[in-house]
C-alpha cells in the first residue's frame, strides 16, 4: 500500500518497557502494519528517521546523545508523543537528580560494593551525562502524552487508532494511570 503512515520510535533514558508494552497489542500489530510502516525504531534497526508522521519517545533525557536523538525526532516527525512516566516526568532515572553527578559516578564505578578495577568510563564514544535527568517536554515541543509505567497496550492501540482514523486522540478514565 502506498502512503502508509510512517512511525518512528525510540527509547532514551528508558528501560524499553514501554516498547514491550506496545508489542503487547499482539495480533493487532498485523492490523497496524496494514496502514503503518516503521521508520527508525528498535523494531527495524533503521538508524535515522526521515519524514515521519508519528514519533513515539520512551524515556527522559539523561545524556547528550538523548538530546540529539530527541531533536532529530522533533525535526522529522509531524506528531511527537511522550510515552510513559520517564518521558513525562523523568521517572526512575530522575531519582539521581538529588545526588551530584560526581557522587553517582563515584558510587557506581569507584566506591561501590563489588566494583572491580575501579575507573570512571571516559571513552570518547560515550555520550556525556547531563547533570540532571529531564522530561522530554523541557527540551522539545511535545504534542501528546501517554502516561503509565508502562502505558498499557490498550493505551497505544486507542491512541494510534484515534490518530489513524482522523480523530483527536483521547484517553478515557480507565486507560489513564501514572503507575
Amino acid at each position: 500500500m502506498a502512503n502508509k503512515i510512517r512511525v518512528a520510535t525510540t527509547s532514551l533514558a528508558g528501560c524499553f518497557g514501554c516498547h514491550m508494552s506496545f508489542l503487547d497489542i499482539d495480533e493487532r500489530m498485523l492490523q497496524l502494519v496494514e496502514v503503518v510502516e516503521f521508520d527508525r525504531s528498535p523494531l527495524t534497526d533503521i538508524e535515522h528517521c526521515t519524514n515521519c508522521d508519528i514519533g513515539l519517545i520512551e524515556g527522559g533525557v539523561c545524556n547528550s546523545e538523548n538530546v540529539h536523538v530527541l531533536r532529530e525526532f522533533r525535526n522529522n516527525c509531524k506528531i511527537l508523543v511522550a510515552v510513559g512516566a520517564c518521558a513525562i516526568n523523568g521517572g526512575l532515572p530522575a531519582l539521581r537528580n538529588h545526588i551530584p553527578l560526581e557522587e553517582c559516578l563515584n558510587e557506581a564505578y569507584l566506591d561501590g560494593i563489588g566494583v572491580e578495577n575501579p575507573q570512571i568510563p571516559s571513552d570518547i564514544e560515550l555520550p556525556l551525562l547531563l547533570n540532571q535527568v529531564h522530561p522530554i517536554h523541557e527540551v522539545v515541543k511535545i504534542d501528546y502524552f501517554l502516561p503509565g509505567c508502562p502505558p498499557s497496550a490498550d493505551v497505544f492501540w486507542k491512541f494510534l487508532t484515534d490518530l489513524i482514523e482522523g480523530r483527536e486522540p483521547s484517553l478515557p478514565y480507565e486507560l489513564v494511570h501514572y503507575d
Partner: protein
Amino acid sequence: MSKTITIDGKIIPFEEGQTIMDAAMAAGIYIPHLCHQPEFTPHGSCKLCTVKVNGRNCSACTFPAMDGQDVLSETEELIDDRRKITQMLFVEGNHLCPGCEKTGNCQLQAVGYHLNMLDNHFPLFYPDREIDASHPDVMIDQSRCIFCTLCVRASQQKDGKNVFAISGRGINKHLIFNAESGLLKDTALEATDQAAHICPTGAILIKRTGYQVPIGERIYDHKQIDQVSLASSGSRPDEALPPSLAVETEHVKHGE
C-alpha cells in the same frame, strides 16, 4: 421556605452555617478537593475546589453558602484551572507514582485521573526534601507533601496531640514534627492515630503495609474519586465502599 443555592444550574438546599462544599457534598455533587475533609476545620489551601460564585472565584470549602448564590463548578475554564493546579502540585514535589507505595490509593493521583491530566506541562522542580524514617511504624517522605495540613489538623482535632506543623515559607516550606530532636520517633505519634492515615498523598506512610493490597486492585484503580469521596461522606449511602477502601480507612491495629 428553605434556602437554596444553584450549582451549575441545579438547585441545592443548604442549612445556615454550611459552606458551598458542605451543601454540594450533601446533595451528591463532587467538587474536586485535596486539603478538605468534612470532619476538620476547612483550610482552603489546595485551591482545587475553586468555583465561580456570582462571577468571582472562591474556595468552595471555605466560602459560606448564602441564599440565591449562583455557583459554577464544572465549567471548561474551572476544570482547566484545576488541571493546572494539579500539575503545579506534581512538579513542585517529587511525585513519581511508579515507585510510591501509595499509588492507586493516592488522592492527588486520583484527582489527576479525574481531571484527565496526562502530563505535567510545567518544568519539573525536583526539590531536595528529607525523609524521616526514624519512627518504628510511620515513615514521612517530604517529597510528596502538598502542605494540605490535614495531618496537622487531625493530630490537633482528633488525636489531641499536636504532632505536626508547617514551618517556613515559599520554597522552604516544610512539615515539622513536635519534638526537641525534630525527629518523628520522639513525637507522640502512633500508627493508630488518625493523623498517620489522613495524608491524601504518599507523604505519610505506615511501614510494612504498603503492598498489602496489590497495585491494580487499589481504590482508584477501579473507582473515580468523585464516587469514593461522595460515598465516604455518606451522601450516597447506597454506594458500597470497595473493599480496598475499607482497608485504607481502617486504623491499622499494630503489633505484627
